[in-house]
Every structure is written in structure tokens, then in C-alpha cells.
């Protein structure tokens, strides 16, 4: 959606304001995780650090979140092509995968505890909980957003002429998928 358009009687340049605001929101989320990542690196360099046994479940949840991004994109393309039925299917699958991801992350915490890394203890372990927990909190927000779009889809309000919400939701979703990949790789490589 580029070029000039009308929103609330204002002449708008370049981008839809809500989508633009969405990107700014993502910037602030990025800043949270950048600051925590650098805190992690700084803390690690100070010493008194332990090696983390990562839960095997993280590998499966990583696959799940990548799949959810694919199904989200399927819903997005369906919306562009006005295929109302496939929008609902795509969004429904995405929601289920997201919930599976959260359940998986929760069980991964259980595995972490079994491996001897508690939330309270050496910061090396605590950071893993913080990263995964904050990511899930943002994902929960995205799921609420997803359900709003899903309800709109059932009311026939998501289609090629009404894509703003759908586009924002897709952006947020891919962002959170990418964020998880980043966090996982960051934690593995800095272990």
C-alpha cells in the first residue's frame, strides 16, 4: 500500500499510519531484546557463568513456529486472492500451531529444571527463562491479534480490499518467528 491515500480525512503519504505505527512498535520490541542480549553478553564476560543444557524440545518448537509462519503466509495470500475459506483455514492452523508452540515452550521449561537450570540461580539459566518468557508474552499478544483477524474473517471483513489488519498481523507474526530463531541461535552460539 504505497502512494497517497485518504485516512480519516487526512492526506497520507507513503504508508498507512497504523502499519507504520506497527513497525515502530516492533522497533521498541527489538530494543528490549537487543538490550537483554547485550546484558547477556556483558554478564557472561564478567565471569561466574555456567554451561546450559538446552532442552531438546526447543528443536521441535522451532519447527512448529516456522510452520506457523508458513500457514500465516498462506492465509495472507488467500486474503489477497479473496479466497475467504482458505483465510479461515490458514488462520485456524496458525492459531493451533501457536498454542502448540507455547505448550512446547512451557514443557521445555520443565526440561530445563530437570537439567538443573532453575529460574532462581545462576543468571546464565535465568536469562533463558527471561528470553523465552518475554517471547511468549509477545506471542500471546499476537495470538489475541490473530483471533481478532479471524473473527473479522468470519464476518467477511478480510479480503483484497481490506488488508490492513491482515498485513499487520502477518508482519507481527513473521517478526516473532524470526525473533525466536534469533534468540535460539543467540543462546546456542553464546553458550
Amino acid at each position: 500500500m504505497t502512494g497517497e491515500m485518504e485516512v480519516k480525512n487526512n492526506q497520507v503519504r507513503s504508508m498507512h499510519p497504523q502499519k507504520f505505527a506497527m513497525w515502530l512498535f516492533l522497533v521498541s520490541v527489538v530494543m528490549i531484546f537487543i538490550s537483554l542480549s547485550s546484558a547477556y553478553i556483558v554478564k557472561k564476560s564478567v565471569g561466574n557463568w555456567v554451561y546450559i543444557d538446552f532442552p531438546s524440545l526447543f528443536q521441535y518448537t522451532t519447527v512448529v513456529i516456522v510452520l506457523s509462519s508458513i500457514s500465516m503466509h498462506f492465509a495472507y495470500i488467500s486474503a489477497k486472492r479473496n479466497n475467504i475459506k482458505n483465510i479461515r483455514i490458514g488462520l485456524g492452523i496458525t492459531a493451533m500451531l501457536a498454542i502448540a508452540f507455547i505448550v512446547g515452550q512451557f514443557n521445555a521449561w520443565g526440561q530445563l529444571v530437570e537439567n538443573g537450570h532453575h529460574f532462581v540461580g545462576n543468571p546464565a539459566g535465568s536469562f533463558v527463562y527471561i528470553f523465552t518468557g518475554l517471547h511468549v508474552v509477545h506471542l500471546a499478544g499476537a495470538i489475541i491479534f490473530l483471533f481478532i483477524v479471524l473473527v473479522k474473517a468470519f464476518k467477511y471483513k478480510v479480503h483484497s480490499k481490506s488488508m490492513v489488519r491482515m498485513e499487520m498481523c502477518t508482519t507481527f507474526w513473521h517478526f516473532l518467528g524470526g525473533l525466536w530463531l534469533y534468540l535460539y541461535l543467540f543462546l546456542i552460539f553464546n553458550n
Partner: protein
Amino acid sequence: MSVTDIHLQEDLAHDDHHDEHHEQGFVSKYIFTTDHKMIAKQFLITGIFWAIIGGGLSIIFRLQLGFPEMSLEWLRPMLGQWITPEGKLDAEFYLALVTMHGTIMVFFVLTAGLSGTFSNFLIPLQIGARDMASGFMNMLSYWFFFASSVVMFISLFLETGPAGGGWTVYPPLSALPQAIKGSAAGMTMWLVSMALFIASSLLGGINYITTIINLRTHGMSFSRLPLTIWAFFVTAILGLLSFPVLLSAALLLIFDRSFGTSFYLSEIFIAGEALPNVGGSPILYQHLFWFLGHPEVYIVILPALGITSEIIATNARKPIFGYKAMIGSILGIGFLSFVVWAHHMFVTGMNPFLGSVFTILTLIIAVPSAIKAFNYITTLWKGNIVFTPAMLFSIGLVSFFISGGLTGIFLGNSVLDINLHDTYFVVAHFHLVMGSASFFGMLAGVYHWFPKMFGRMMDDKLGKVHFWLSFIGIYLVFFPLHYIGIAGFPRRYYSFTSFETFSIYGDLNALVSIAAILTFAAQFIFLFNFFYSIFRGKLAPANPWKSNTMEWTTPRFPGHGNWVGAIPKIFRWPYDYSKPGAKDDFIPQTVPYSHTPESNLEHEEELTKEEDLTGVEKVN
């Protein structure tokens, strides 16, 4: 062309719509409003409320510092158990007072009260938008701030007192509730309040940036934006990038305090007992905090500098000197603010090489700051200066900015900082350059835009009295503190009277306290003027300061939507004051070059050919 036509029709349709809903209920008009002008006033009034409290707290601890022997028994009705049986101020409550004074002034008055008020009020009015990009988010921003204020206010009345670890709340002191009273429930509420405050700032900031980028009126390019808008724009970006970092820092602190993690804690003994926390680092908190904390001081000062640029150009009846240099220096300050945070941490045992890197980066900030100061002075030079109260406060700001900025060059040196760190020299420095300067910017803004906010004028004479008392008073308060600081007196100490040697500055401290009380009292002149003028002030003319920016093209009492009919188009930059050949000494931004052949420069004459004059009336 076609786009413009559709635009006009849309506007007309909007006005019909607008008239139908002219009568808003009390709640939707004054409380849960989405009108940016009303939200700005809400921020302003809340900010004033906090300024009175924050100032009042400082008067209480100034009494202790200036008159350590004095009996404060008369404060018992207000402070209750915080006055000891001997009639003295409780020492731990003194720490809480200092902490709350800092927190309130930095965040609630000079961030929310300043940015919240003027970004909200001026952005849509000066760029030609009907409202913010999202009125709802804007409303949410205020109510998050309100919730944050309520939590902070309640914490003042806790039995253990409000937070007491200094406004920077460094762990381990702040992380251990058993350490001092001020680290107990008060600190928890401080953290909750700040989390809400950060949410408010982010909601507001996202809205400001989106509005400035997306909703400018026809012709309002970035090179024609008033400097106020440039300053608010960069301020919002700084907030967007730095407040999430404070949230991270606060989050880890919350987990350390309430869940027993060890991010900031390691090997601590309290009352002879070892705590279980191992592996954390309190320095980590300082890095995270100051990564916000340093941009925060520019979040505080930049809007004030933007307001001043506008007021000085208007009242000197001259174009701002070096418009592009001003923008460049705002951007330069914004960028540099992110790479200097460790100059607050020179004495944490950091690598001396790192210290010199941060020293150099810090000293570079002197360049854009000096450009700004130079441009203010050259704008004033040979201008037809009109000394309105707003102008006086703006000039006062420039004075504080220079005299406070000079001491920054001392403090930015990692070597000198070993001596000056945490002394009254630091207190004097930042109270002048950041505290008083941006406070003056805020007052200047209120005096200047009061006619637009409330449709009435504030009293000129009272404004001038207010200025002179404040200006002289502030210098009397903060100038002596430099001497006390160089002599090595540390800040945040309850008393210096235990040893005879340290009483040498007793008289000077008494003078500072008297000046502080008089300065504080002078603010009530402003309060009277402000509230009286809202209801009884003279009705304001359309353009009382003969200003060029487009907020003065709105009606005296602009409705929700700001302009009746189409939004005016913009044809020129905002600083065409005293242009040679022009009929008046100002040409508003809405006047096309084709209407002013007598004053056009050569390249402007070229622009007349491209001007789209549909919907523009010729005014003579």
C-alpha cells in the same frame, strides 16, 4: 491534481459530519477524550500538579540542608512520623525525598509534562493534521501516565515511605527490601509506576513519529517543518529506542527483588548473614539504566530547545539563524546521546581506555550544543526583539544552557570525574543545563501557546515578574552549589554538621535554601496567572505574536478537527520574518510565493510557477 480534489471533498464531508456531533458529553470532551488538544491540556495540568509536589519535596530537604539545627516540628501535621521526636527530619525519609524529587521532576514533569503537552498540542497544529494518527492510542498514553501517577502518588503515603535509593535506583540497594525502608514496598510501587510510565511514553512516541511522517499537510515538507516539530520528532525517536531498555533493566530488577534471581546480585552479606544470590553484577544494571538514562536527558532538553527556537525567531522578528544547522545539531545530539552513557559510570572501575573513548564521545556533544547556542545568539543579534514573557524565558533557557553546559565539559572528563563524581558540582551542572533549562522551555511554551490553548491571554506583567524572580532565584540556588561541589561535598548526604571542619559552607547552604524557597514561591505567581487567565484572561487575537506557523490560522477555540473547512496548504518555510521588501514583518507559511512578488528571492520566483493555488484565497 485529482488527489487534491478528492482531498477537498473529503474535508467538506468531514465538516458536515463534524457539525452533527458538535455537542460532546462532559466525559468524552474532558476526560476520555481523543482530541489531541485536550490530551495536551491533561498532560499539562497533571505535569503542573507533579511540579508542585516535586518542588515542594525539594523545599523540605533544602530546609534540612540549609538549616540543620532548625526544628521541623511544624511539619509534623503533614509528615507525621517522618519528623523524629527531636523535631528533626528522619534520615531515611530524606533519602526518599531526594529520590522522589528526582523521579518526579525528570519523568513526570519534564518528560510527560513537557513532551506530553507540547508534542500533543503542537504536532497536529503545526503540520496541518486534524488529529494524531491514532486518537485512541493517544488517549491510552495519557491514561497510562495517569495510572502511573496514581501509583507513584500512593507510594508517598506508605508507612515505609516511597522509594529511597536515588532516582537511578541502583541495585543492590534497591534490589534488597531489607536494606533500607526506601527499598521496601515503596520501591515495588516505583517499579510498577515506571513500567506504566514507559508504556505511556511508547504509546505517545509511536503516535508522534507516525503523525509527523504520515499526516503532514500539502506542501509541508521536512525542510519546511518548524524546529519545534523537528525537536519533538527526534525526541520521540530517542524515547522509542531508549525506554524499552529501561523496561528491560526494570524487569530484571523486579525479578531480582521479588523472585530471587541474581541478575544484579552477588555475594552480599546483610547483618552478618550471606545471601544465596551468586553470579550477578550490579554494574550490568548501570549499563542498562544509563543507556536509557543518557538519552533521557535529551528527551528532556530537546523539546525545550525546539520551543525556544520557535519563540526566539518569532520575537526577534528574524529568521532563525542556521535552520539546517539547527536540524543537523538536533540530529547530531540525538545520535551522540546513545554512545556516551558510560560517562555516568567512570568510577565503577571501568577500563581507563574505555573511559577515554567515552570522554572523547562526550566532549563531541559540545559541538552541536555550541552550534545551537551560537545560533540562538546570532538570531537575537540586531533583531527587533519583543520581550514577551515567553521570549524572556527562552533567553533565560539559552543562558542556563550555556552556563550549565560549560560544566559538562569538566564532568565529561574521566579524570576530573574522579574528583567531581557524585558531588554537588554534578547537582549544579544538571540542574542548570537540563532541569532549569527545560523547565524554562516548558514555561516559555506555556506563555507562548496559552492563547491557542485557552483562547485567552496571560497577564504580561505578572509573567515578567515571574521570569525575573525565577531567573535570579535559580542562579542563586545553583551557582553556589558549584563551589560546594568542587570542595568535595557529596550529594544525597543527610547532614554535614557532624564535624566542625565540614560546616564551612553552612552559610552558603542557608543562602541556597532561602533562594530555593523564594524561587518556589515565585511559581505561585505563575499558577495564579495561569488559572486566572484560563477563565478571566483577555480574549486572544487570532495571531497574538504575529507568528508564521500554521496553528495561528485555526479559529480562536479550535474544535476537534482544528480547521473549519479545508486544511491550509503550506508554501514556504516558517521563518520569513522581516523579509526585505515584504509589506509586513512576517509572512505566514500559508501565503504562496505568487502572492508576494515584492519580497521573493530568485529561486522563490521560480517556485511560483509550480504552486498549486486551488483553494487558496488571496488576502490583502
